[in-house]
C-alpha cells in the first residue's frame, strides 16, 4: 500500500487483521538495515550542513581557496578499493568459501585503514608546508571535513573489527551475512560522501 493511501485509510471502518497473518513491518527487511538507513540519513544531514556552512563561509571576503594536495587522489583510490572489496565480500558471502570471503573482508578493512593513514599523512604534509588550521577558513574546513569523515570511517572499522574477530574465531561466513551487507552499504555511503566533499573542496 502506498504511503499516501495508507495515511488516508479510515482506521475505524475496518476491523480485523489487515495484511494477512504476518506481523506488521513497514519495510520488508531486517531492522538493522532500517536503523542503518536512518543513521545514514542522519550522517548525510551532518555532512550537508557542513557543506552548506562551507558554501556560506566561502562567500565572505577573507576566504583563500586551498589547493588540495594531489595525494588525495591516491587516497581516493584506496577508499574506492575498500568499497569494491566490501561489495565483493557481500556478493560471495553465500556462494563462496569462507576463505575467499575472509580475503575480501580483510582486504576491504585494510584499504580503509590505509585510506585513514593516507589522510593523516596528507595532514602532516600540509602542516609541514605551513598550511595550518588557523591560517584560513578554507584550511580549517579541510581539516574539519576530512576529520569528521575519518571519524565516521573509524566507527565503521569498529563494526568491521568485531566481524573480523568473529570470523577468525571460526564463525561461518554465512552467519556474518548481515554484518557484511551492512558494512558494504555503509562503505559505499562514505565513499559517496567523500567524493562529494572532495569535489566540493577541489572546485572551490
Amino acid at each position, binding site marked *: 500500500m502506498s504511503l499516501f493511501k495508507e495515511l488516508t485509510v479510515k482506521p*475505524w471502518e475496518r476491523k480485523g487483521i489487515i495484511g494477512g497473518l504476518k506481523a506488521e513491518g513497514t519495510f520488508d527487511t531486517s531492522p538493522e538495515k532500517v536503523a542503518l538507513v*536512518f543513521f545514514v540519513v542522519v550522517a548525510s544531514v551532518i555532512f550537508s550542513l557542513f557543506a552548506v556552512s562551507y558554501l556560506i563561509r566561502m562567500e565572505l571576503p*577573507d576566504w583563500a581557496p586551498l589547493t588540495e594536495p594531489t595525494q588525495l587522489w591516491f587516497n581516493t583510490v584506496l577508499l574506492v578499493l575498500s568499497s569494491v572489496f566490501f561489495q565483493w565480500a557481500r556478493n560471495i558471502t553465500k556462494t563462496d568459501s569462507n576463505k575467499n570471503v575472509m580475503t575480501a573482508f580483510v582486504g576491504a578493512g585494510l584499504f580503509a585503514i590505509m585510506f585513514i593513514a593516507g589522510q593523516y599523512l596528507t595532514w602532516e604534509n600540509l602542516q609541514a608546508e605551513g598550511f595550518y588550521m588557523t591560517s584560513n577558513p578554507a584550511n580549517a574546513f579541510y581539516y574539519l571535513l576530512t576529520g569528521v569523515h575519518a571519524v565516521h570511517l573509524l566507527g565503521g572499522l569498529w563494526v568491521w573489527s568485531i566481524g573480523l574477530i568473529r570470523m577468525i574465531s571460526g564463525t561461518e561466513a554465512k552467519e556474518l551475512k548481515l554484518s557484511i551487507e551492512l558494512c558494504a552499504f555503509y562503505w559505499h555511503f562514505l565513499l559517496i560522501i567523500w567524493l562529494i566533499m572532495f569535489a566540493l573542496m577541489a572546485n572551490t
Partner: protein
Amino acid sequence: MAYVPLADQDSEQELHHPKSWVTEWVFSQDHKVIAIQYGGIAIAVGIVALVLSLLMRMQLGFPDTFDLIDPSQYYQSVTMHGMIMVVYMLTALLLGGFGNYMIPLMVGARDMVFPFLNMLSVWTYFLSVLILLASFFVTGGPTGAGWTIYPPQATMAGTPGHDMGIVLMLASLAVFIVAFTMGGLNYVTTILQYRCRGLTMMRLPLTVWGLFIATILGLFAFPALLVSAVMMLFDTLAGTSFFMPAVIEAGTPLDYNGGSPILFQHLFWFFGHPEVYIVALPAFGLVSDVLSTHARKNIFGYRMMVWALIAIGGLSFIVWAHHMYVSGMHPYFGFFFATTTLIIAVPTALKVYNWVLTLWEGDIRLNAPMYFAIGFIFTFIHGGLTGLFLGNVVIDLPLSDTYFVVAHFHMVMGVSPVLVLFAALYHWYPKVTGRMFNEPMAKAHFWITFLGTYAIYLPMHYLGFLGVPRRYYALGETDFIPESAQDLNAAITIAALIVGVAQILFFINIFWSLRYGKKAGPNPWGSASLEWQTPDTPPVHGNWGAELPTVYRWAYDYSVPGAHQDFIPQNVPENEEPTADEQHFDPDHDQSKANL
C-alpha cells in the same frame, strides 16, 4: 532470503533476562527500566533547573531584599535553566522516558529492537548530564551565554564561563546528541518494524505517532546542533574563524577574522526550532490519548491529527529564522519566514479544535489526569495565540527580546508540556506501578500548578508590552517603565515560589502511593489501547507472556454503538466483542468513576 517478521519467527526476540540486581536495575536492557532511568535522571536535573529559575525570580522580584545571586550567577542561571529544561529535561523525559516506556507496549513488542543500544543510550545520556553538572564546579563556573550560546560572546571574556564552562556545555551537548541518536534509531525502527500482527500505522495511538514524528525531527535537527557545537569548539580551542569575526576582547584585538556569527544562528535555530516540536509533538500525542480515554470518546478526527503531526513536523524545518528577525540577517528573509510561521498555525489550530471536539458529546470523567489535560488545552491556546504575535515579523520588532517572548515560550513549551507530563504521569502511573495515586492530592497539585503558572505568565506578557527587556539582571532606571512594573515582578515571583514548592505534592504522591496506594488492576481507566492489555501489571520483562498480541481495531473504540461496554480493547477480535458477562474490564477495579 526475505526477512521474516518477528512474530512469524520460531525463535522470538532474544531477551537479555537480568541475572543480578545490577543487570536488573542498573545496566538493564528492559525498555521499561530504561524509561524509568531516563525519567528519573531527567526529573532530577529538572529540579536543579527549577531551583535556578526560583533564584532568578527572587532577584527579579525583590532585587533589594534578597542577595542570593550576583550578575554573573544570574546569567549562568538563565543559561543553565534554559538549556537543562529544553534539552536535558523535556526532551529526555518525553522521548527517553515516555518514548521508551510506551513504544514497545503500544506497538505490541517485547522490547525495543536494539535493547543493548537502548541501555547505552541512557548511560550516555547520564554521562552528558554529568559533564553538564561538572561545569558548575570548574573555574569560572558554567557558561552564562544564554541557552542559545551565541558566538562571539559565548567564548569571550565578559561572559561568565567563557573558558571552561562553554567547552563543557558544548561537549555535553555533543554527548547528549550521541545518546539521543542511539535512542532515536531504536524508537523509529521499533515503530516501523516491530508492530504486532494487525497493527497498521493508522491503528497506532497518537502517542506513538507524536513520538515517531518527534524522533524523526530530532534525528534530523540535532545534527545541526552537533555541527555548530563542533565548529564552535574548533573556534575556541583551535583558533579557527568559522563563526568568529575580528573582535576586541576587553581592549585587546583577538586573533580571529572574517567568521560569521549569523551562520551560527542559522545552524542553531535549524536545530532550535524543530526542538520546540520535539518537545511539543510527543506532548500532543500523550494528551490526545488521555483526553480520549477519559472523555470515553475516540479522538476526534484521528486522520487529521496524524496529518497535522506530519505537517507540523515538516513545516518546523522551514520556519527557523523567525527567531532571527532582528538578528541582522538579510531582511528579505522576513517575508518567507513570517509566511511559513503563520502557516504552521493552521495545522496546530486544527489539533486544538479536535481536542475540544473530542470533549464535545463525550462522557467526561473529571479525574486528575483529565484535569491536567484540559488545563493543557487552555494554556496551549494561550501560548499558541501569542506565537502569532511573534511570528508576524513586524510585531516581533517591538516585542523581540522582551518579556513577551519569555512569557510566550514558557506558556507554549514550558507550562503546556509540563501539564501534559503530569497528565501522562498520573494517567499511566497505575500501569507502571500497579497502584493508584492519591486523587485529592493530585487535584490539589493541579490547581496550584495550573492557576499558579497562569498567574506567573499572564502578567509577564504585559511586562513585555511595556518593553521590559529579557535577560536583565536588574532593570535600573528607565524613563518609560512605570514603578508598578516592579510590583508585577514581585507578584510573579511570589506565584513562582508557590508553584515551585507545590511540586513537592507530586513527589509525595507518587512515592507514598507506590507503597500505600490502592491496587489498580490491569486497566483502571477502561482504556482501549494496547499497553493496558498486558497480562501482568506492572508489565514484566518481555511484556506479553507467552504470545504476542494481535490487533483487530484502532486504539480508539470508545462508546461504540451496540457494544456492551464503553470501550473495546485493540486486541479483541472483530466478531468477539465482549458481552456483558465476560468483560475485559473488571468493574471492581474501575477507578475512572471514583473520586468525582
